């Protein structure tokens, strides 16, 4: 269906509607909201990774000149139920305890109290006047140690979920997940060769450049307005209402422009605290995290240990695959172990597999969603194992993957049968790509790997308003992280048949537009885009009925073509077609203003697969890795605005390479992160990378009128194994753990 459409606007690359404000400094981000009479809020954070809180006394801070509010855990409602709808957001009771500790602090940097003062300087001094008594406990930082029976417990009430029998002793293992098909033992018996490995990947941060920020103001009636940088202001509003035990209607959330999120801004940290401080002081309160706070207390994603065993026939056919995985959840349950288990074998059509995953508490920050949460770590293990198999069989790594590739009709390891998917198309495109046909540069190595992400639908609303002059406003509720307003305008232009330039898209606040779940799960262009298309169709229906009345014909005698109402074929009316502008001009006479609406819970998001490959050079003396070239091939279903699809692919490649080559949370024995700044947590800079070549494959998603699949998350998945496999190719040595930092590479090369 989608292929048959002759597209005029979709697939073009116009300038985004919010662009000019972003290149001139006008755009308002999280920290840019100031209000008259505003106070500055700061958070006191735990100096211990694990301790019982004996006493918190904020009275010393409150007594200071210029301090107008001070709160700690006991000021917040104690019972908080429900769960955060956002991806990886987890249990709301845990979120409440994460934003303000009660009873125990569970990681170094855990929030324990907060103040609001007339200046930032006074607020910072006031933190020293807060008295806290701790009973320091031994921390547990390593995921395998945390799983041991005698490990220090983070939560004495945590009993492992999903075990065949309910355990009688508490554990740091919050839950276990098992996925299985066929008989792996028989599968391994049939194998001609079996590879096995244990792969460790440390915690990494999303690394958005904009720190978390919000400004809250509460009036005497208890009505609050909150400006914040968030991936989803509706979900933030709901969570804040639960955490503060107030009606949702008392809270208005306004999403600022957002300076990156990658999943990390689906979770809230500051907003309920700022509301509490504003309630207490009666004045607006602004809170902005420092970069150090961002590292110590937000994000990151799980560190993992993955053990994988794969068996294959001599012709490359996989006979069995088995994985055992442990994910660090941080301080509260909810590591992305589930999506990890479900994604690890997703690109392949397997008869026999077994996956067991563990969600494990450790004394580190509670993990947050990070781009394809859980998949990069799991798929790194599988894609490295496949590389070893291809090497042993002397087979091209793309051919090996093609031999086992999932296709339309394949039953996914996580249950459903795949509808049309683009994995094979990606493999073919990669094989034909000039970069793949080019020889590997002298002294370098090439790595290949596959990527995958489920994508999600969820709830979205959109409104399309027809202005008096025939221009159009699209109003929706998903913060625009990477050009989504442009995509909404393009889909509206295509559906309405009017030029892109005549349409403008806005992200409304929680009072001015209908409910939308977070910008996450790569859902926005798909699900909110679908709502925009439906709202445009609603407007077209209304236009047709107005025109029918004007022409004195039946509604079904009016067609919509190229942005105008025309008589349907065979209709014999002496009329001139009416453009959207004509119809808009006649609104006062034909029934008043026009507003198209759609609200939906989108189904059929359509998985996105990828193949990435790269050529890397390793300096054997220093261990430094240079990325010579990187090629990303990915199925986008249909690229609405190809620049921003490429941008997702390039940005994900860069993040994945950073994680593969350098990024990691480094802890001392007491559980203090030692590299909580951009200098020591080293993300890729421009001089670390080459141009990142992209090739968009388009296998339309049957569940979207234009064939859209989410594209945002898949790009980070493959680069981890791409880098590992390229370093293996370049050095002849397999290094199982990430990051492939210079010291690790030097040590590995010396060991051989």
């Amino acid at each position: 269906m989608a292929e048959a459409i002759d597209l005029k606007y979709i697939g073009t690359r116009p300038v985004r509607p919010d662009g000019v404000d972003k290149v001139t400094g006008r755009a308002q981000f999280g920290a840019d909201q100031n209000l008259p009479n505003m106070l500055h809020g700061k958070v006191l954070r735990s100096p211990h990774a694990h301790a019982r809180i004996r006493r918190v006394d904020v009275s010393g801070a409150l007594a200071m000149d210029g301090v107008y509010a001070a709160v700690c855990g006991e000021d917040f409602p104690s019972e908080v139920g429900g769960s955060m709808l956002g991806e990886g957001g987890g249990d709301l009771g845990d979120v409440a305890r994460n934003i303000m500790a009660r009873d125990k602090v569970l990681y170094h940097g855990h929030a324990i109290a907060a103040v609001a003062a007339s200046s930032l300087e006074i607020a910072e001094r006031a933190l020293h006047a807060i008295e806290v008594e701790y009973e320091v406990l031994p921390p547990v930082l390593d995921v395998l140690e945390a799983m041991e029976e005698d490990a220090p417990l983070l939560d004495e009430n945590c009993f492992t979920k999903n075990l065949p029998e309910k355990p009688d002793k508490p554990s740091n293992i919050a839950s276990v997940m098992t996925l299985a098909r066929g008989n792996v033992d028989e599968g391994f018996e049939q194998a001609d060769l079996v590879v096995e490995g244990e792969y460790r990947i440390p915690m990494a941060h999303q690394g958005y450049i904009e720190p978390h920020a919000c400004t809250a103001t509460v009036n005497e009636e208890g009505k609050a307005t909150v400006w914040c940088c968030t991936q989803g202001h509706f979900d933030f509003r709901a969570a804040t209402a639960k955490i503060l035990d107030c009606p949702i209607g008392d809270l208005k959330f306004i999403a600022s422009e957002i300076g990156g999120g990658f999943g990390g801004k689906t979770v809230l940290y500051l907003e309920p605290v700022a509301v509490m401080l504003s309630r207490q002081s009666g004045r607006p309160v602004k809170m902005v995290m420092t970069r150090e706070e961002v590292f110590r207390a937000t994000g990151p994603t799980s560190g993992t240990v993955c053990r994988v065993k794969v068996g294959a026939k001599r012709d490359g056919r996989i006979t069995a695959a088995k994985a055992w995985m442990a994910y660090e959840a941080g301080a509260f349950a909810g590591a992305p172990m589930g999506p990890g288990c479900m994604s690890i074998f997703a690109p392949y059509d397997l008869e026999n597999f077994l996956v067991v995953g563990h969600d494990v508490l450790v004394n580190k920050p509670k993990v947050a969603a990070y781009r394809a949460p859980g998949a990069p770590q799991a798929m790194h293990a599988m894609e490295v194992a496949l590389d070893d198999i291809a090497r042993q069989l002397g087979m091209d790594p793309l051919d090996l993957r093609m031999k086992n590739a999932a296709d339309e009709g394949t039953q996914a390891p996580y249950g459903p049968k795949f509808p049309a998917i683009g994995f094979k198309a990606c493999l073919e495109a990669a094989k034909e790509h000039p970069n793949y046909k080019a020889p590997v540069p002298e002294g370098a190595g090439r790595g290949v790997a596959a990527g995958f992400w489920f994508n999600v639908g969820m709830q979205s609303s959109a409104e399309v308003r027809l202005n008096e002059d025939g221009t159009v406003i699209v109003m929706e509720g998903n913060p625009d992280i990477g050009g989504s307003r442009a995509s909404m305008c393009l889909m509206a232009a295509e559906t309405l048949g009017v030029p892109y330039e005549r349409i403008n898209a806005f992200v409304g606040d929680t009072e001015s537009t209908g409910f939308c779940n977070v910008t996450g799960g790569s859902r926005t262009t798909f699900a909110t885009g679908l709502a925009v298309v439906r709202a445009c169709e609603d407007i077209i229906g209304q236009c047709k009925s107005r025109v029918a009345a004007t022409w004195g014909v039946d509604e079904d005698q009016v067609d919509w073509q190229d942005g105008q109402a025309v008589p349907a074929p065979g209709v014999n009316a002496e009329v001139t077609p009416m453009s959207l502008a004509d119809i808009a001009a006649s609104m006062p006479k034909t029934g008043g203003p026009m507003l198209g609406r759609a609200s939906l819970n989108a189904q059929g998001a359509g998985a996105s697969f990828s193949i990435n490959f790269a050529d890397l050079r390793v300096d054997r003396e220093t261990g430094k890795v240079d990325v010579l070239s990187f090629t990303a091939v990915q199925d986008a279903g249909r690229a609405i605005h190809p620049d921003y699809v490429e941008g997702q692919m390039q940005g994900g490649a860069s993040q994945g390479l950073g994680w593969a080559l350098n990024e990691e949370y480094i802890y001392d024995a007491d559980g203090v992160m030692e590299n909580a700044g951009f200098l020591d947590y080293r993300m890729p800079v421009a001089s670390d990378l080459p141009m990142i070549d992209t090739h968009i494959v388009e296998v339309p998603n049957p569940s979207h009128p234009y064939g859209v699949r989410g594209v945002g998350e898949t790009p980070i998945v493959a680069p981890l194994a791409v880098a590992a496999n390229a370093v293996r190719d370049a050095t002849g040595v397999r290094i199982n753990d990430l990051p492939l930092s210079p010291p690790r590479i030097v040590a590995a090369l010396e060991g051989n």
Partner: protein
Amino acid sequence: MTKMHVQTSINGETVEFLCSPQQTLLEALREIVGRQGTKEGCGTGDCGACSVLIDDRLVCSCLVFAAETQGAEVTTIEGIAGDGGLHPLQEKFLEHAALQCGICTPGFIVAAKSLLDRDPDPDEETIRYWLAGNLCRCTGYDKIIRAVQDAAGELAYQA
């Protein structure tokens, strides 16, 4: 604490303000004189989001005391577009989709302008090293580099 009186030129306009001795230029720009186009990503000189020019020298405004700008000429993102509209760098950033979230963009544009002011025809490597002090987490830099290359060409054409 006694405040200091500072007179400086911001984007060609004479501006006077009071600040405390330890306040940074970034803080003064954003919180005292209301120029919020300059962004804070780290406050420690590691991300370049706060890039401004002081007397045509590229600096991280989070590492400069506000009081140091007494008598200086400060150029911020708000001063990059001229009377004739957007600067070619701004045009090219838009045209190449060199921004996703856009938080790093003001810093990149200011830094790239200072490069092109010095070297109107930089090669890719020069651009990558000049911009190595600016972090972008969204784009992978590809489109940013292309936008700067294209803007250099455009400026050469205009000259």
